[in-house]
């Protein structure tokens, strides 16, 4: 009999893969129990389980590097043929390791950062739940199961962004009293949590529609099943439904990864504790979208082999990525809040990844763009987690989210200062020694070499964005660490709060990641080749996507005596120039402070207007609010006032009265008098016999 657990156990297969996502959920389950005993212990439970999960992830790494795939399934709802399963292919294993280890470090950091908070139990419950959901996304072998994780991530982010639900003033984001187009640019944690939930939900609904559209044709949710038999794609393409379905799926990624036009929730998500921001930006939430695209892109690209052209789909991905990269980078240049600058930067960097994955599908060398996008995901995860945690320490100690309230901190927080430079250089793409440089360079090369019509405009956007990135990162470090102490810090010191270094449980995690950014960066090119080779094998064996062996080096000459072999010279020059210009400008304004940026902006109406335009978020947020919040509310009120009151309640009483009438008749028959009940019983028998006779 199938209810016996034996089938189940044998189906589970490699338990390590299951453990990766089940352990964090188990932690979430037991954390409330520990919370009853001691609130502080909850943090250590979360850390211990995250470590266990990370260790089971790392044991899979050797197999994955050998392009070994683990795919186990158990029956889930066999009546409609749906199975649950885990799929640990190289893509999933690498992603899973990135998520696991970075989350582990963030959990350690959280034990220090959240010390003394009243709601530790709730905090760590949701953190563990967040991690479990993310790993579920990464390791799922089908859409439906992935969607469970997808929604879990959404739920956890809602709970954590709005974690400080009392909406105290210090937990808001934005500047109080500032208005954009008549709407306040100032948001409370609960509002932000709701905003994140609703905006990502828009994407989720699209994704659900895309999922079921494909299911309707393929009869399966499984990724491998979809790859193995592509008749569904032919059928869908014949009805012109394939690209819409793919774009709907991408809609989910747009929402989750905060890409244009669903990008605005990401900024307000900064109301959460900084550890949460780090988790959302480096390891879990926004990376889920990129991961989904990385999961799907080869599947759709491989369809070219059976003559289905998916170019439109990949063009949309590439352009959404490019637009987001530029859009958010420009805004990052002007914002005064440190966490918001980092948030803009995340959106912008995710845009790079999307761009690379999109371009991959448009070029003959799919694997180049694919590697570049994924490599950038890994390097971004390291330096962004480090930057966020460092920023959290600074916030924690200075007690303000505005960079103008900091300044001159380099003497007091030496370690944080050093680590922030290291990670910041990664974000800027400092040449040759940081991972960020190599991964960004790989993206440039992939875009430049793709040979697509859009290659040059997208390449230009990528380079401009890189300049801006270098600039705002320098600005951030300059504002925080250089110059004189701000008035805020001086006031604090007068009250006896001295600025000091963060505690070890905080600086060690971001220190590790900052060192890794440089450490891996030094060997960056070798690392990239490693991933590249792995993906060549993986994509070739699983999806049948062929790549020529001469990959990165298309037409390039050996530079620097072979050290830079395989690097595209145009892309390399562009990266170097972008870094030099961006860093140089930033140095002039914020580190050397030769020119006062405020005076500079006000000196010229063009710069002034541009500055305001960026600061007001290209008016996008305000327009979204006007269009989707304010206007519908007006319409709803108007409808209520003029339509419902007059039309519905005045004239159209039919449905309401019918229901009420029906209910009243039911009530009337229920007299409570037994005789009438018996009578109805008797009539009932006659009716039944009559019904049987016809």
């Amino acid at each position, binding site marked *: *009999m*199938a*209810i*016996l657990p034996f089938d189940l156990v044998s189906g589970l297969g490699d338990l390590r893969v299951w453990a990766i996502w089940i352990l964090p959920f188990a932690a979430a389950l037991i954390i409330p129990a520990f919370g009853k005993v001691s609130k502080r212990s909850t943090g250590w439970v979360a850390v211990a389980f995250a470590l266990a999960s990370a260790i089971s992830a790392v044991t899979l790494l050797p197999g994955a590097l050998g392009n070994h795939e683990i795919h186990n399934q158990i*029956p*889930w*709802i*066999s*009546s409609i043929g749906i199975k649950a399963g885990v799929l640990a292919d190289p893509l999933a294993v690498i992603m899973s390791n990135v998520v696991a280890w970075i989350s582990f470090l963030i959990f350690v950091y959280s034990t220090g950062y959240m010390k003394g908070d009243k709601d530790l139990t709730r905090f760590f419950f949701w953190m563990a739940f967040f991690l479990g959901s993310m790993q579920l996304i990464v390791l799922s072998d089908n859409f439906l199961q992935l969607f469970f994780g997808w929604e879990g991530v959404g739920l956890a982010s809602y709970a954590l962004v709005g974690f400080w639900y009392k909406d105290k003033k210090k937990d808001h984001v934005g500047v109080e009293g500032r208005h954009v187009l008549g709407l306040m640019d100032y948001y409370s944690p609960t509002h932000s949590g709701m905003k994140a939930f609703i905006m990502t939900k828009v994407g989720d609904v699209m994704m659900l529609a895309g999922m079921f559209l494909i299911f309707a044709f393929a009869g399966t949710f499984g990724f491998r099943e979809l790859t193995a038999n592509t008749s569904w794609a032919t059928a869908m393409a014949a009805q012109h439904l394939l690209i819409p379905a793919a774009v709907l799926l991408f809609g989910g990624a747009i929402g989750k990864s905060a890409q244009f036009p669903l990008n605005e929730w990401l900024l307000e998500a900064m109301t959460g504790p900084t550890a949460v921001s780090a988790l959302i930006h480096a390891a879990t939430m926004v990376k889920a979208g990129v991961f989904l695209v990385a999961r799907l892109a080869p599947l759709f690209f491989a369809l070219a082999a059976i003559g289905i052209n998916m170019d439109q789909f990949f063009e949309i991905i590439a352009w959404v990525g490019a637009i987001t990269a530029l859009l958010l980078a420009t805004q990052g240049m002007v914002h005064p809040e440190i966490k918001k600058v980092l948030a803009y930067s995340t959106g912008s960097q995710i845009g790079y990844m999307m761009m690379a994955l999109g371009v991959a599908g448009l070029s003959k060398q799919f694997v180049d763009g694919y590697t570049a996008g994924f490599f950038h995901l890994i390097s971004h995860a390291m330096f962004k987690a480090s930057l966020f945690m460092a920023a959290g320490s600074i916030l924690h100690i200075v007690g303000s989210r505005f960079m103008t309230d900091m300044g001159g901190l380099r003497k007091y927080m030496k370690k944080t200062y050093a680590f922030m430079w290291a990670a910041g250089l990664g974000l800027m793409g400092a040449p040759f020694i940081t991972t960020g440089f190599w991964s960004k360079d790989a993206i440039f090369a992939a875009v430049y070499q793709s040979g697509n019509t859009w290659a040059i405009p997208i390449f230009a956007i990528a380079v401009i964005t890189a300049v801006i990135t270098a600039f705002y990162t320098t600005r951030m470090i300059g504002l925080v660490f250089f110059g004189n102490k701000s008035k805020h810090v001086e006031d604090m010191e007068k009250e006896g709060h001295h600025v000091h270094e963060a505690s070890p449980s905080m600086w060690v995690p971001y220190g590790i990641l900052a060192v890794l950014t440089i450490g891996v960066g030094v060997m960056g090119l070798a690392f990239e080749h490693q991933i590249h080779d792995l993906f060549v094998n993986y994509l070739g064996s699983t999806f049948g996507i062929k790549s020529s062996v001469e990959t990165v080096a298309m037409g390039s000459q050996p530079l620097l005596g072979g050290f830079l072999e395989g690097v595209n010279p145009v892309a390399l020059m562009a990266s170097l120039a972008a870094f030099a210009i961006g860093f140089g400008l930033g140095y002039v304004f914020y580190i050397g402070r030769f020119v006062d940026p405020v005076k500079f902006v006000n000196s010229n109406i063009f710069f002034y207007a541009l500055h305001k335009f960026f600061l007001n978020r290209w008016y996008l947020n305000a327009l979204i609010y006007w269009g989707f919040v304010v206007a519908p509310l007006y319409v709803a009120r108007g409808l209520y006032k003029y339509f419902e009151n007059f039309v519905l309640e005045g004239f159209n009483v039919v449905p309401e009265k019918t*229901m009420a009438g*029906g*209910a*009243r008749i*039911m*009530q009337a*028959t*229920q007299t*409570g008098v*037994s005789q*009438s*009940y*018996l009578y*109805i*019983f008797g*009539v*009932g*028998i006659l*009716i*039944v*016999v009559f*019904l*049987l*006779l*016809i």
Partner: protein
Amino acid sequence: MIEFTSTPIMLTLILGAVGVLIPVINVARKEKGSSVYGVIALGALLAAIGFVVYQILTKHVTPSAIFSSNVLVDDTFGSFFAIAMLIVGIMTTVGSFNYMRGRANPAVYYSLILLSSIGMILIAYSTDLVMLFIAWELMSIPTYVLAGYLKKDPSSNEAAIKYFLFGALSSGIIIYGISIAYGLTGSTNIEQVIVGFSKLGPDMMPLAILAVGMFIAGFGFKIGLVPFHMWLPDAYEGSPPTIAALLAAGTKKAGFAAVLRVIIMGAIALNLHWAFALAVIAIVTMTVGNLAAIKQRNLTRMLAYSSIGQAGYILIGLSVAPISPIGIQASLFHILNHSVMKAAAFIAVAGIVTTLGVTHIEKIKGLGKRMPITALGLTISLLALAGVPPLNGFWSKLMLFGSAIDAGHTLSWAPYLAVAGVLNSALSLAYYGWIIRKMYFEEGESNKRLKEPKSVIAVMIFSIIFIVGIGVYPDPVIEFAKSAVPIMSGLPSIH
């Protein structure tokens, strides 16, 4: 002869012995205190359910539902119902711990629950009409007493009287049906009766149909099929809420067991066009139940009507059973789910009654803050009753409606059953949602957290785990239900 160690016999022995023993202990024991009897009863029920599960796992149970020349048979169909009934019995017993504290005659109360459980279980295992009738009475008589348990409370007395009156009437009708069947076929063995029916000449056919009609009326009374439902809201409302749980979740399901054993198998053999009759009853039942529930202000009464509505859903699967292979499977699945959901809802109400002493819907405002666990349990069970994913009620409703659509290949009107079911589910959300709204979104008189009865908390936690667990991973239960479905092809037919 059926073996001594077979499941039905052993269950009767375990539950019967303890059921008889409890009042004896009460006489011998000097100290007051009700919990000890509850614990003994709980032990017996746990032992019983353990035995059933053991028998299934060691494959001592015949799969599917079978006929036998014995009066009882040890098959999966019976075991499926036995598990459902025993879960309800356990939930009722545990839920009663706090409710019964300080009330009179606890020993008899728990003893009657055990005896009634034996009846319910034996119905599902019966293969003989007389055995089935005896089990039916064994189930019913203790519940008459239990319904009138609050002897000083007039509404409890009214409930018991009405329930008894209709119980007696329906017993008479069932006997009448059995006597016609015996007269026509010369046997009371269900298989013999069905074989005999299928060989009847056309002149005798109306009598056979009359017998089936009597069975529908007689069993339908317990299930709460419209128009045999009139007693039900009055009886549920007047009884102690824990007993309402037993009635709604337990005895009602036993009624379905009887319907499946007798009517469905018989009607398939008769090749009767009974699907239409059951479909009409199904639609009327769910519509009447849900419509009437909207107007109710009393929680128990609302749940009583809701259980009428749910019976309508279950009947969908039964009416399309000969056409769609998943019809009965879906019904069985929903029967099990409904047992837990409805029992949980009633026990939650019992918890509210124990703590606050109210059942009026206006009085439970702000319950989410005052009794958070009870409110959560009630909310989850209501959402599951409405069929909200990913709770267990969603899957069973999906299968029920799916079976109706599936049957549309043969019967053109069958998909309308699904339409009616979906519309009714939407309608039912109106009053389920209303209760949830009162508990969470309206300010109560105070926000002070009350002490929730421990036993109710235990039941709530169990039900939440069950409802959500089956909702996320429904497969084992669906498979179990599948293994309990009677094999249609094996039945005699007049073709």
